[in-house]
């Protein structure tokens, strides 16, 4: 963080946070720096600020979400914004309304920021072209989930001081994971070495071109790693013949104490949640307070989202 502190007056020329691919190293540093101040605030008894007083934040969730949505909601409220959360999963879209129509309707209410989650990759990009306010991507299809990667970086920095020079393994369903993609971009940008570990059917085409080493063997993939990032295995993947069975997957790709031994002695375990205990991660490991930082990830998530809301909302 030494380098980061020296930087001054970082400019955010973009109006939206659509993905890690669109932001620069210094912008990431600025977001992390501001988020750090909010960690302290979030621990205090008086958590409310008025930075975003009078501003309207709409959470537009086209996919079910518990933690991301509540995290964004809390972040907005703590900054003093008026927050409205809309679950479109079971409303307008079922009536045939298109994303743009929904966006135009909301735009007419003059929000200052829209947080969107959508099952289609690129939906936040489309939305950002049509509305006058800032758009923050809370996960689109398999493409990006920038705030998740940022909070993961913050968690790592909090424990290890920096990301640079660390070896990070991302394990599991890389193919369908936006968390994996955003983390690959961000951890690479911050100077880590990234391994991805998955059965071949769950590795995307040309994944090495994103600057990672791909492994199909946990032993090799975890070797010497400082961070082991587990991804959720969605149950529906079992039916698409990506995998033979959950028990086989757990045997070869589930994180167990045995496999964790291959990583560095003090390696941290991360998971974006929600977890499938006994499918991708051993239940005791998930709760091991010395190794698992899963609860910290959730905690820092609020801080990261506060920083993002503050930075991007201010612009409009």
């Amino acid at each position: 963080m030494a380098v980061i502190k020296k930087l001054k007056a970082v400019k955010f020329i973009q109006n939206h946070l659509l993905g890690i691919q669109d932001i620069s190293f210094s912008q990431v540093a600025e977001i992390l720096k501001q988020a750090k101040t909010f960690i302290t605030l979030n621990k205090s008894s008086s958590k409310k600020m008025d930075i975003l007083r009078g501003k309207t934040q709409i959470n537009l969730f086209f996919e079910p979400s518990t933690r991301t949505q509540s995290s964004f909601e809390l972040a907005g409220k703590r900054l003093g914004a008026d927050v409205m959360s809309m679950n479109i999963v079971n409303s307008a879209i079922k009536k045939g309304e298109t994303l743009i129509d929904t966006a135009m309707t909301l735009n007419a209410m003059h929000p200052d920021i829209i947080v969107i989650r959508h099952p289609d990759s690129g939906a936040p990009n489309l939305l950002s072209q049509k509305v006058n306010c800032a758009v923050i991507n809370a996960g689109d299809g398999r493409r990006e989930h920038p705030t998740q990667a940022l909070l993961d970086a913050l968690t790592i920095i909090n424990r290890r001081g920096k990301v640079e020079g660390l070896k990070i393994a991302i394990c599991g369903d890389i193919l369908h994971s936006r968390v994996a993609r955003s983390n690959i971009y961000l951890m690479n940008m911050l100077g880590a070495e990234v391994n991805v570990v998955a059965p071949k059917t769950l590795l995307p085409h040309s994944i090495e071109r994103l600057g990672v080493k791909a492994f199909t063997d946990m032993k090799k993939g975890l070797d010497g790693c400082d961070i082991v990032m587990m991804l959720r295995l969605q149950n529906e993947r079992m039916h698409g013949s990506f995998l033979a069975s959950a028990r086989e997957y757990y045997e070869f790709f589930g994180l167990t104490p045995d496999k964790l031994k291959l990583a560095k002695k003090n390696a941290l375990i991360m998971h974006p949640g929600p977890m499938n205990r006994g499918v991708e991660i051993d239940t005791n490991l998930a709760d091991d307070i010395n190794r698992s930082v899963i609860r910290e990830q959730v905690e820092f998530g609020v801080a990261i989202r506060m920083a993002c809301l503050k930075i991007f909302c201010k612009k409009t």
Partner: protein
Amino acid sequence: MKEKYLINARLIDPKNNMDEFGGLIVDSKGQIKAAGKKVANGNLPSGAEKIDLKKQVLIPGIVDMRVFVGEPGYEYKENFRTLSDAALSGGVTSVVSMPNTSPVIDNVSMVDFLKRRGRDKSKINIFPAATLTKNAEGKQMTEFGLLKRKGIIAFTDGTKTIQDPEVMSRIMNLASQSQTLIMQHAEDNILSKNGLINEGEISTRLGLKGIPFLAEKIIVERDLSFLEEYYCRYHISQISSAKTISVIKKAKKDGKIFTAGVSINNLSLNENDIGDFKTFLKLSPPLRTENDRLALVESVNDGTVDVIVSDHKPQDEESKRLTFAQAATGATGVETLLPLCLELFHNKSVKLKKLIASITSNPAKILGINKGSFDKGSDADLCVFDINKAWVVDKNKLKSKSKNTPVENRKLQGQVLKTFVKGELSYERV
């Protein structure tokens, strides 16, 4: 109709290996009487109409083997009149219209309707294709014999592929006894299920489900195996990947007789052009890598691919203003087919005569129509263009009812000046 003398032109007719300055005579029936340097500028009969083409290029009218028209069912995307206007301004005088309409063109009563509408509303020649199977469902064969009697010259399920190998083998078997032209859109449904763009680095980065090249290759390989047993007139509508070209090249070398086409989109664009989720570039087959594009260009040059099509697929604005996954597939192209072909000539990728052949004589030969050359007695469908004229594509100036051009703002070189259909001047650029 008076005899017409088109003089002072550069005539290019690949079928007769002609590229020379001279003239062309259209007889009173709208057919070509003579063409070439032997048609001199002076000594014209007094009653004849003389048109001085001022050294511009004169080629046979373009035959586009893959065009979608919205009639019936999707008139708001394109109707026969708007298609005709668009085609003529692009020098296209004959089109094979795809049967994926609503309802689908799968029975003789639909053919009568189409022929009547096509004749009344358009100035170009419409050759409707009928489906291979009822409702293009890939199960029950259509009545090839009866449909052919009504004037159908080509059969295809259009945007769909015959998936069931048994159905396909029977179609080819039946087609072999009657010399029926079968056109296949080669894409395995299961491999390409929910796929949106080429499977590769771009699909990984954009987080869009990929369509592997194997989806195309596997169908081509399967059909070519059938072709050995059931020899029929078989045409692969469009190919998109280098791997498929290898299969075709080998099969042709082994003596198999069949033909293949490629969309001008796959020759002029690649997957990188999709950029930030441009839905206008959501196409089928998908745009693939630059290496694939280069291989396709080379395959036009060496004759592995016979035909270039526009794959003109008009889509209204609403069906494209959606997320990439939800947006409709296809792009317009009939107006930019020739200029984009000329781009491949200007950048020295393909010889001019090869390009012209792939949009005139080759498709005409595959379809078995009296067009696509300056042969004496063939229909005087003609296109006159300025080979060097520079212009910029502006979707609002294009004549198609839909504005989903994949090459908006592209700088092109070469523009159509006049188009004749059966000897009549049907379009003139003002």
